[in-house]
């Protein structure tokens, strides 16, 4: 074999070779290059043809949107009426019917604030105070009992407000706790380190369901007689403790990615431990661990639906109750699609936000 080398004096930029021109070219290179890929393409087109049009017909053309249960039995299409007719119960659960404007307003405040806080330029002290004030107002709207608002027992809370309450508080409290646990696990002090390791490994070794059971069944046994702790609060604490352990491991991974030189440079200037962590290490570590943290938070959000097993009426449980009504039996697909859609919106919001944050923080 002889290799031919040619020395050219051309320094002009050369365009990359054109591999595809137009739609046909694209199809040929991507869908029909070779008999195997062509076969796969044809099979996929056939499967799509078999599934998509019937689904669209079921979900849209033959569907009923506003009707009662009996009308739904007659039709072949989807019965979205199961959602529309029971919407207030699915969203608000057993919250008194006349007062349901209150959780609605509380949710609107929460969503508005979440959207407002998306922009990092607005992260100032005043925003923190706004959040505190808003949380108090939301609590007041839910609980009542002051300013002429009728009191509502927390056992009547349910549906979407409960899901949002458990997840927003769960995630915001679990995150800082997780950071502290991760720092503790890397501590040079053996006692702190051991405690953190035991905590993290114990919590991670146990399913969330068992923690929820313990919080609702076992924990009250240890309380003195007459003392009760609110059931929602107990579930909330279980979710926080559980999520924090997972966040801690993600944060630990982020901390390990920070080169030793960064610690040394910070120490060489004379920064103490807290300053080194707060100013140098955590800002860098938190940035690189945005994607895994958001995964943990999203899955924690979905895990809040497990509170059904301790008979809290979150969004999933209210929907299930509707489906056990004889009038609406047999329409579980529609109801669950709706629930899935609500969860998807929330999760999409979280992952979309994390992507924006990553872009903003990229240096």
């Amino acid at each position, binding site marked *: 074999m002889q290799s031919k080398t040619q020395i050219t004096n051309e320094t002009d930029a050369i365009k990359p070779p054109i591999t595809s021109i137009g739609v046909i070219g694209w199809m040929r290179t991507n869908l029909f290059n070779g008999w195997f890929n062509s076969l796969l393409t044809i099979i996929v087109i056939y499967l799509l043809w078999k599934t998509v049009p019937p689904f669209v017909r079921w979900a849209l053309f033959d569907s009923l949107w506003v009707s009662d249960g009996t009308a739904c039995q007659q039709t072949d299409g989807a019965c979205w009426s199961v959602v529309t007719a029971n919407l207030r119960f699915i969203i608000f659960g057993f919250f008194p019917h006349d007062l349901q404007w209150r959780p609605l307003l509380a949710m609107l405040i929460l969503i508005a604030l979440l959207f407002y806080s998306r922009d990092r330029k607005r992260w100032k002290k005043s925003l923190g105070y706004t959040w505190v004030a808003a949380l108090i107002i939301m609590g007041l709207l839910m609980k009542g009992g002051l300013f002429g608002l009728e009191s509502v027992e927390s056992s009547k809370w349910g549906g979407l407000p409960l899901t949002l309450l458990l997840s927003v508080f769960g995630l915001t409290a679990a995150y800082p706790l997780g950071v502290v646990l991760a720092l503790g696990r890397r501590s040079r002090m053996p006692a702190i380190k051991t405690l953190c390791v035991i905590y993290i490994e114990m919590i991670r070794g146990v399913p969330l369901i068992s923690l929820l059971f313990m919080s609702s069944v076992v924990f009250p046994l240890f309380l003195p007689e007459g003392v009760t702790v609110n059931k929602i609060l107990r579930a909330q604490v279980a979710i926080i403790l559980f999520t924090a352990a997972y966040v801690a491991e993600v944060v630990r991974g982020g901390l390990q990615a920070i*080169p030793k*030189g960064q610690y*040394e*440079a910070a120490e*060489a*200037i*004379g920064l103490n431990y807290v300053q080194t962590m707060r*100013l*140098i290490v955590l800002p860098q570590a938190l940035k690189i661990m945005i994607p895994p943290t958001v995964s943990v938070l999203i899955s924690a959000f979905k895990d809040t639906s497990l509170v059904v097993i301790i008979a809290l009426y979150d969004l999933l449980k209210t929907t299930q109750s509707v489906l056990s009504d004889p009038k609406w039996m047999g329409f579980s697909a529609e109801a669950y699609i709706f629930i899935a859609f609500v969860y998807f919106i929330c999760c999409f919001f979280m992952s979309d936000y994390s992507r924006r944050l990553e872009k903003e923080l990229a*240096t």
Partner: protein
Amino acid sequence: MNLKQSNSEKISPSDDAIIEIIEMHKWFDDFHVLRDINLRVGRQERIVICGPSGSGKSTLIRCINRLEEHQRGQIIVDGVELNKDIKNIEKTRAEVGMVFQHFNLFPHLTILENLTLGPIWVRKTPKKEAEETAMYFLEKVHIAEQYLKYPGQLSGGQQQRVAIARSLCMRPNVMLFDEPTSALDPEMVKEVLDVMISLAREGMTMIVVSHEMGFARSVAHRVLFMDAGKIVEQNTPDEFFDNPQSDRTKLFLSQILH
């Protein structure tokens, strides 16, 4: 191995020592990295430490600001002995500037923020004053126009100059340099050495771990040669290079000077 110390009494520019190391030993687990180190560094004295890799020269200067802990003997920096007392250590670190081989700038902060961080948080300097000081030193290392950029946007030589300015902002009494030019592309070595030479002219006390022999000749009062955790030989640069005493030094010099 014989420890030679020929006519080295005249070199110390000032009698009161800013750093004093007495019979210091250090181990990494079982490995004896530093063996019986004795060193007095006078104010405004400039020392270059050289030696083969693994000889303990980096570890030695890292002990001076307690990035490494010594197990036996004493290290006294500016009258303060380094021991377990964390307050003493933090105070000493603020007085002793350190420049690393790999710069170790903070990548998430701008150049200006890299420089003002220490003064603001350790010295409690007001922000405005800290920024003025920072700009003064950036000017000095000829990089002031880049102050809003991030470290990743600068070349290696520029980053190292920023790192030097970052240390200077703390107004240190001593500057430690841990192979400051070894990670640089050859054409950037000079710009960093020039900054170090001008620093030397202003009378900064410096301890430099380096194999830049030209720099050692023109700037150092004393050259130390270390091997296997010991200070094998120390002398004035001219004597050290032209008339090395121990065989180990001769071998080392013949290898690095080709």
